[in-house]
């Protein structure tokens, strides 16, 4: 089930990048795709009826879902936010240079240069 959600979200993200013209929207779509991929990865580690992979009072012995995808997703999330921050700062600069965020207007200004 969750597979489909993440696939559709990836599709929406791609659709967003393909159709949108505002630079911010690209970052938004990128974040959507990142989130979708993360959900997908986690769902690949989910095992019905198993528990959170933490040894605790409630689960003293191992009865866990797959912890590795979770670890990977932790990394992926942070990498995603790093990229996003870079993108945002580049975007600020682009705006300063062209005074617009619409790709078509930027293209016109690039061509005129």
């Amino acid at each position, binding site marked *: 089930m*969750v597979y489909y959600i993440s696939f559709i979200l990836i599709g929406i993200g791609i659709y967003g990048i393909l159709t949108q013209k505002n630079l911010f929207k690209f970052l938004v*779509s990128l974040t959507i795709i990142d989130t979708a991929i993360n*959900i997908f990865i*986690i769902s690949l580690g989910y095992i019905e009826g198993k528990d959170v992979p*933490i040894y605790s009072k409630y689960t003293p012995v191992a009865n866990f879902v797959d912890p590795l995808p979770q670890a990977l997703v932790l990394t992926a999330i942070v990498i995603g936010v790093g990229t996003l921050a870079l993108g*945002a700062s580049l975007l600020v600069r682009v705006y300063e240079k062209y005074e617009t965020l619409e790709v078509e207007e930027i293209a016109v200004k690039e061509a005129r240069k």
Partner: protein
Amino acid sequence: MTIATIFVGILMIISAIYAIEAKKMLDSFISLSLLSLLSVFLFVIMKAPDVAITEASVGAGLTTAVLILALRRIGGDEE
């Protein structure tokens, strides 16, 4: 659980579409943040509390903050 998952999923898809199609950037970001929060819910369902916490703080909080700060720096929402 399945019904909850489907419900959350549909909400996520809606918020994703809204995030992409929203006219105002701020709406888009808030919708994105909502998407992140919903995904936190999914993570919890899928027994991944570490990821959930990280996503809540990084994905929902920081991402939105960064985007909004960037929006603020270019002089707010134009429309």
